[in-house]
């Protein structure tokens, strides 16, 4: 099942939280939704889930708006904010009520509680849960209807390292089963390890929508590193070939915007000795910071995006 977002826009008075975004989120892979705080991630997700009404545009799940899904929880599972459970209700009863509303068999409640490791505290009141436990309960709720589409808003918030690894494996496994997995995060490192495809958003606009490898490769910080005792001489020869290089150490040059083979050839023709010629990939973090630099520069608080 595919999530199709077309021209989606959300305005709060004079502030535009989400500005005319269009996306196609495909099944069978983890799509990361990355952006700084206040960039419109949660607002977009709430509109996809039919919780907030778009000012313009549509968000369709398998061609239908969320409100028209027959049993929504069996189609789309979502984790929004973990603390959205009545504090006086037990984890089990919360899930029972959710299951009843969508004709989900009651045995699923025990199953998903087992999956997220909350069986022990199933009958405890949710108000006493730690943030990590609440997060697990939210994930259990998302899995309740065994849905084809899963949307997680900041799923690893509050989880310990074990929990973070568990969520990562869970998302990979769900995508491997052919499900559509859409995960928002501001943790770039997390995305690098989980997502196949990346949508980067800044100030309510899509900055990049590409496979994660392309995002990294397309970054200007993807560079070639050269170590040579004749650094200055090589720099001149490269300059003659209109390739800019900068000194990053006494005998080290860093060159961006040129293929590694070309640099090797130029050094060979000039007779410059090389001690190292290597490619240095940008981390997703660098690529991301570069992409969003413009959009956080004048960042102003956007309502509806408190996280």
């Amino acid at each position, binding site marked *: 099942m595919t999530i199709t977002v077309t021209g989606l826009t959300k305005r*709060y008075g004079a502030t535009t939280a989400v500005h005319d975004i269009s996306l196609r989120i495909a099944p069978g892979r983890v799509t990361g939704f990355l952006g700084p705080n206040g960039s419109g991630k*949660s607002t977009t997700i*709430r509109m996809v*889930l*039919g*919780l*907030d*009404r778009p000012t313009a545009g549509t968000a369709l799940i398998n061609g239908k708006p*969320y*409100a028209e*899904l027959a049993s*929504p*929880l069996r189609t*789309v599972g*979502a984790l*929004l*904010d973990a*603390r*959205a*459970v*009545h*504090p*006086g*209700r*037990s984890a089990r*009863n*919360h899930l*029972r*009520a*959710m299951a*009843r*509303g*969508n*004709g989900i068999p009651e045995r699923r409640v025990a199953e998903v509680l087992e999956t997220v490791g909350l069986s022990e505290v199933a009958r405890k009141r949710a108000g006493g849960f730690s943030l990590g436990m609440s997060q697990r309960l939210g994930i259990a*709720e998302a899995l309740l209807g065994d849905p084809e589409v899963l949307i997680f808003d900041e799923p690893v918030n509050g989880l310990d390292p074990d929990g973070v690894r568990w969520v990562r494996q869970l998302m990979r496994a769900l995508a491997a089963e052919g499900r559509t997995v859409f995960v928002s995060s501001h943790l770039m490192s997390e995305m690098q390890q989980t997502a196949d495809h990346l949508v980067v958003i800044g100030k309510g606009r899509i900055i990049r929508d590409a496979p994660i490898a392309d995002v990294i490769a397309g970054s200007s910080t993807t560079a070639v590193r050269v170590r040579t005792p004749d650094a200055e001489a090589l720099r001149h020869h490269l300059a003659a070939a209109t390739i800019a290089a900068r000194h990053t150490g006494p005998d080290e040059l860093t060159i961006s915007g040129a293929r590694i083979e070309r640099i090797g050839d130029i050094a060979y023709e000039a007779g410059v000795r090389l001690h190292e010629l290597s490619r240095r990939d940008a981390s997703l973090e660098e690529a991301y910071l570069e992409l969003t630099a413009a959009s956080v520069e004048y960042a102003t608080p956007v*309502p*509806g*995006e*408190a*996280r």
Partner: protein
Amino acid sequence: MTAAAEWVKLWTVRSTWWCLASSLVLMGSCAFLLANDFAYDLEHPDEQSVRDTVATTQSIVEPAAASVSLAQFAVIALAMLVITAEYSSGTIRATLRAVPVRGRVLLAKAAVAAAVTFAAGLVLAAAGLAAARLGLRDYAVVDAGDAVAVALRIAAYLALIAVFSVGMGAALRSAVGTLSAVLVLLVGLSMVVPEPASHYLPGVAGSMFVADGDVGAALILVAWTGAVLAAGYAVLRGRDACPRAGSAATGPHSPPRELLAVELAQRDALQKFLPAVLVEAEHRATVVLAVAHLDGGGVAARLHTVTVVVAARALAPRVRQQDLSHILRGLLAWRTRS
């Protein structure tokens, strides 16, 4: 399916049980005290201060019907929490994801609240009638037909008021706003609006219906309920489920303090301008406190508050107003500190 989910939600929070228990205590004690007053005045003609009737017997229906005006507040709290607790806890977003059709969610909530309060109304009526019989002693008039009729009217009234409260909760979302609005419409306005016009207010129409089975009054109440439910639907449909993600951050433990401030301000205003409604204002303050605790306080606090409400009602006819005010102010001050 939707109603089944709402049914599970209603019975899996303690506040529902507390509200039902409180309504039973309020109904029973109020009916007994009213009945006992009637009997006491007849037995002690020399002590009587003001007696507004020359009757020497009373139907058990009368104290029972009159007690609904107090017991209803616990029922209102139950119905209101069906929706306002979802906004204060954030569960509304889970609810609307499970059932995105707004009208179906609201109808399910209204139907569950109505069904439960109708059944509770029958139990409350039975308790009120029994307590009235006990309090009236030899002066009681018991008529089975009248008793059944009043029980059905009490149940129907409470079910309507429950739907009214659900609608108001959907329209206003916060417990503070909903409770204030319901109290103003049911009680507050009837003190200000003059006689013939006041018959069109939901509270006055409601008590006329419960006391006499007035069909016109019932229709007025139905119209009010329909209008408020429609307003709730319009808001639920038109507004974002969560326009501001941070709004839930205050959590369910903040309403009591807010409620207290609002109610204290209202009480002070009422005391200044309308000394005659002082006692009523005290009742409201204590009832609001009870609701506030149901929304977040500890078990001891709830028990204590129920006791205070009953005590306030019990003391009201006998203690001078200044004394009552003094006692309650002390209790309230103690609460605010703790």
